[in-house]
Structure formats: C-alpha cells, structure tokens
C-alpha cells in the first residue's frame, strides 16, 4: 500500500513535466503568436505600431529566443509562481486564474456530491427491485441522461426558466455579490445559484454511475456471502447495505479517477453556456485570442486537477479496499 502510494507520488512530477511540454507545444502551435494578434489589435484600435516597440516587447517576452529556451523560461517563471501576463486583460495570469479557480473547483465538487448522493441510492433501489416500475423509469432516465450533452440540457433549462418564469439562471452569484469578497452571505448566495449548474454538470455522470452501481450490485447480490449472511438471520435491508453494497461501491471509487477530472474540464462547456465564473470560458477566450501564456496556464491547471483527481481515487481505493491495501 505504502509502496503503491509512493510510486504514484513519484510519478506525479514526471506526469506534470510531460504535460507541461505537451501544453507548451499546444499553445505554441497556432501560426503567429500573441504579439501578432497584439499588433493587429493595436492597429485595429488605431494606435500606431512602433517597430522598435515591437522588438522591445519581443525581447521582453523572450519571443526572439528558440523554442526550448522559451519553454525553460516559462517553466522557470512557473517555479516562482509566475504564469506570465495576460495580453487581453493586462493582468498577471495567476491573479486571473486564482479568481476563477475556487468557483471552478467548488462547482466540480458540488456536482460530484450530487452525483453520488443520487446515483448510489438509485442504483441500490434498481438492483434490489429489478424489473420493477421504478427500475424501468430509472433506466429510461439514465439512457436519456447519458445521451443529452450537458450544454443542451443547460440551454433547455435556461430557456424554460426564461420563457416560463422570466428569470435568467446564469452566473453563480447575484449581481451584488459578483465582486464582493468571500463571506458567509456570499457563500449562501452561491448555494442559491450553484444548484442548477451542479445538476446540469452532474446529470450524465449520475446516469452512468447509477447504471454501474445497479450492475455491480446485481452481480454481488447473488454471491454466496450474501446467501451466507442471509442464512445468519440478518434482516434483508441491513444485510444488503452492509455487505453487497459495500463491495459494489468499491469499484465505483476507481471511477472517481476519471469522473472528478471530467467534472473539472466538463464544466468548461456548461460554464460557457451558463456564463459562470470558471476557468473554462477564460481558457476558451484565451485560445481564441491567442493569449498563449494564459491558455497554457489554464491547461496546466486542468492537467494538475486531473492528476490530483486520479491520485485521490487511487488513495481512496487503497484505503477502502483491504484487498488492495494489504496486497504486498
């Protein structure tokens, strides 16, 4: 167990290194660089472009250096917690990302809790009442839930809210709290807004998890240890919840490894549609405007969150499953 975790932790920096190279190459890939877009932007706004000034900027950002030097400079800055300056916002990228990071992670975590809180009971009910009416209804909901792209769901819900109730359900905060510093009142305001994006983001995962839970539990319910526990005189509900559910949930923990990252990066689309404070829309704009160090920074954050999600799942799995924990 300890060896396994140490192995994982050692892999962590290696993965981040590989990712940083991939990300760097990706944001470098578009033809031209942000300076070209900057110049064309300046030209569009009517200001004259001084060639000497361009050269100075080039040197300042190291764009005249070969690619690997640029990468090393970027890495070196990151080591000091500096993600560069955003062209579009004219602010340090760290500051920009930092502003949106907490709501991003919060939304993912809320969706995650929602998914498990709904999917596990639904899966248990379906598996213990196979072929019942509720089981069929849940099956239909699951299929539709998986099939609906979450931005579609967001659009439909926003449309219903707008045309039926005349309210706009975009954003995570009421106007008066958007710029306010964190406080209890702001958090309460967040709770009032986050539930809809939370559901939208979590629906597909919930549907999938319900189906996995149902299938796993159905497999477990026929196992001899369940018969043995029943023969011991345990009441049906206690028995189901104590043994097969526990065993059936174990493999689900390994799904956290892909689900949490999926929530982090999946919120990108929902956040764009619903206009949420999230690093997703920030990335989208950065990519389109070739604000490359901002895009690179955000992509790195996504990679980091993804790896952390996988790590959490590995640790949890080893922690709750003795078969993995005790394995030499």
């Amino acid at each position, binding site marked *: 167990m300890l060896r396994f975790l140490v192995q994982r932790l050692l892999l962590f920096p290696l*993965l981040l290194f*590989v*990712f940083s190279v*991939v*990300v760097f190459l*990706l*944001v470098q*890939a*578009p*033809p031209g660089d942000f300076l070209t877009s900057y110049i064309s932007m300046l030209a569009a706004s009517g200001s004259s472009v001084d060639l000497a000034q361009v050269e100075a900027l080039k040197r300042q950002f190291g764009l005249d250096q070969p690619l690997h030097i640029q990468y090393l400079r970027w890495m070196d800055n990151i080591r000091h917690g500096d993600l560069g300056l955003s062209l579009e916002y004219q602010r340090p990228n760290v500051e920009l990302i930092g502003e949106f990071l907490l709501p991003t992670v919060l939304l993912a975590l809320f969706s995650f809790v929602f998914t498990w809180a709904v999917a596990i009971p639904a899966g248990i009910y379906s598996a213990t009442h196979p072929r019942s009416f509720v089981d069929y209804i849940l099956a239909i909901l699951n*299929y*539709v839930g*998986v*099939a*609906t*792209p979450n*931005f*579609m769901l967001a*659009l*439909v819900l*926003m*449309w219903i809210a*707008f*045309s039926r109730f005349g309210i*706009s359900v*975009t954003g995570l905060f009421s106007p008066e709290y958007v710029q306010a510093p964190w406080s209890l009142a702001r958090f309460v305001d967040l709770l009032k807004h986050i539930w809809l994006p939370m559901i939208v983001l979590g629906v597909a995962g919930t549907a999938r998890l319900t189906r996995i839970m149902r*299938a796993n539990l159905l*497999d477990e319910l026929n196992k001899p240890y369940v018969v043995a526990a029943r023969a011991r005189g345990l009441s049906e509900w206690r028995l189901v919840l104590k043994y097969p559910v526990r065993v059936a949930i174990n493999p689900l923990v390994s799904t956290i490894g*892909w689900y949490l*990252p*999926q929530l*982090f*990066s*999946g919120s*990108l*689309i929902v956040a*764009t*549609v619903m206009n949420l404070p999230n690093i*997703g829309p920030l*990335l*989208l704009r950065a*990519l*389109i405007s070739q604000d490359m160090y901002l*895009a690179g920074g*955000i*992509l790195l954050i*996504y*990679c980091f*969150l*993804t*790896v952390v999600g*996988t790590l959490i799942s590995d640790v949890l799995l080893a922690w709750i499953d003795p078969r993995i924990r005790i394995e030499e």
Partner: protein
Amino acid sequence: MAGGAGPQPDQTTATLARPAIAEAEERVSLASNWQLIWWRFKKHRLALASCAVLAVFYTIVLVPDLFSTQSPEATDARLAFMPIQRITLLDGWRWRPSVAAVEGRRNPVTLRMEWQIDETKRVPVRFFARGYRYTVLGLIETDLHLLGAATAHERVYLLGTDRLGRDQWSRLMHGTRTSMTVGLAAVVLSVILGSLLGGISGYLGGWPDLVIQRLIELLQSLPTIPIWLAMTAALPQDWPPQKVFFAITIILAFIGWTTLGREVRGRFLALREEEFVLAAELAGCSRFRIITRHLLPAVMSHIIATTTLAIPVMIVSETALSYLGLGIRPPAISWGVLLQEAQNIQTIADAPWLLIPGVFVIVAVLAFNLAGDGLRDAADPYGH
C-alpha cells in the same frame, strides 16, 4: 405428478416436442458464433429499433439533398426566424399533403418581422417534387427531392428558418451528414489504432506492452475537453472545410483510441491463456496466423460493441466543440454548427426551434447507446 391431465393428448405433444427440442439443440450447437450473436441480438427489441433509426440516419448521410427541401446555403434575410410549418397529410379523408401558411408582418416599432401561422390557409406540398439540382454521391445528377412545395413559387420551411433565413430542415439534413460521418470516421480511426496497439500490447507483452501502456495512461490522464479545444484552436483559420473535418476527426481519435486499446489488450491477455491458443501454438501456427485467425475473431464482437458505444461520445464531442466555435466551422454544417445559432437565450426564447438539432443529437446518441448495449449483451451473454 406434474400436470393432472389425461395421458393421451399429452403423449402426442410429448412425442412431437422431443425431436423439436433435439433439433433446436443441434441448431444451437452447430451455429457459428456470429449466428449466436445475431439470435441473441434479435431478442433486444429496443436495440433492433435503434438499428432502424441509425439506418435512417445513415441514409440521410448518403443523400442529404434528397431529403432537403431547399438548398441549405440559400439565405434570405427577409425570411429570418420563420417558425415551424407543421405538415398534415390528410385533408378530411383525402390524401392532400400540405403545410400551414405563414403570414409575415413587420412590427412598426421594433422593425422586426413577426410571423403568424395561419392553419386555415394551406400550402400544398407533394412527395418527390422537383427542386434545386444536386448530384448523388458525385455520380448521378438529379433535381428530385423527397418533399417540396407543389408549386414553384411557394417554399416549405418544415423546421423554420435561422437568423439568415436559411431553411433549418435542409441544413439539419446536411448537418446530419457531417456529424454522423465525423463520429464514424473518428471511431474507425480509433479502432484501427486501438486494435493495433492494444493487440500488440496484449499479445506480445514485454517492453512493447510497457511502452504502450504508459502511453495510454499518459493520454488518459490528459484533461480531454481542454486539450481537444487547444488542439482545434491550433488549426489554421484559413483551412478549407474538408481539411478541418479531417483534422477534427484525427483529433477526436487521438484520445479516443486509448479506451479501446485497453479493452482489446485486456481481451487478448485473457484469451492468451485460453486452451485453444495453446492448441494452435502446439499445432505450429505462426504468430500472425494465431492473431488473425484465432484471436481477432474472438475479440471482434467485443470490438464492434465497444465501437458502437464509442461513436456517440465522438458525436457529442464534435457537437460541443463546434458549438463552442472550435470544431467544424461555417460554412460547413454540423449539428454543433447549427446549435451555435442558439447561443443567446433571447434568441432561443424567440425561436425555440433552433434547439431542434439538439434533439437529433440526443436521438442519435440514444440509438447508438441502445444498439451498442444490445450488441454487447449479445456478444457476451455472461456479463462484461
């Protein structure tokens, strides 16, 4: 004693039933693996229905123009945001297909066109009408369309129009072609990559396995959607639609193959231990022959099922990318491009029919998922 009825009538059924059972058993034992899969698949009625839906979709993919009522590119700013014209086939008891007429009036205050559907006035339509000219698969030139206005000066907007007055139904037909093809092409590419690398990894083991496994792990721990976005954003803006289409396909397959590769590897690993592979090895079969003649047929059914389940993921990904403006780009049409028209909540409120392409996405994904599940159950009756 089971059944208290007299022995006489029962006896005849018994003698009749026995050979029938024996015959059925023999049929089962002689059937090939594919026949068995087909018999089991036939039992899944939803999966069968889904296959029918998919067949319709792919017919549209082959000849979208046949199903279109108008050219998908034709714009007419005066006809923007026209609502849906519902089609009725019967007039009383007589066969007289028609759509409701739409009256437009410009609002003097907002200067916007406001459309009024007049159910009493009918615009007659006919099947196999003449319309704009097109070529079928680049071979046959024709102007035949499944549906069209009966008279030349009338036009039919089955699903309304968008902000440029383009006919949404016809655009949807062409979008179906792109979206369904991207999904299929990306998955075919994934399958080739995944089966090749997964198969090598699973059959050879050793260092090739190690390298491929690490590569898969690396790709799988990349955050899919952001990386896809970054890759598509890196595509040059001036590329022609075909080139973008291929690039998107490759980008989708780039990450998609890993799941399949893993699956194939797992199957191969399990199969390698099977007796029949050992038997083939002892009989002196070459490695190539073992892979192509013994292992591939055994994993083929699973690959097909997994493939069917992977296509919808690709379709949704393409739709999402295009919706965000980083996938298929106009003037090319895909479901995602069509949904881009519905980005503004005010627009959706005014013209909710712009969300209809989303319904197509959901139906297609549902059909693929149901068909895939049916296939998987048929291929592997003892669970996954």
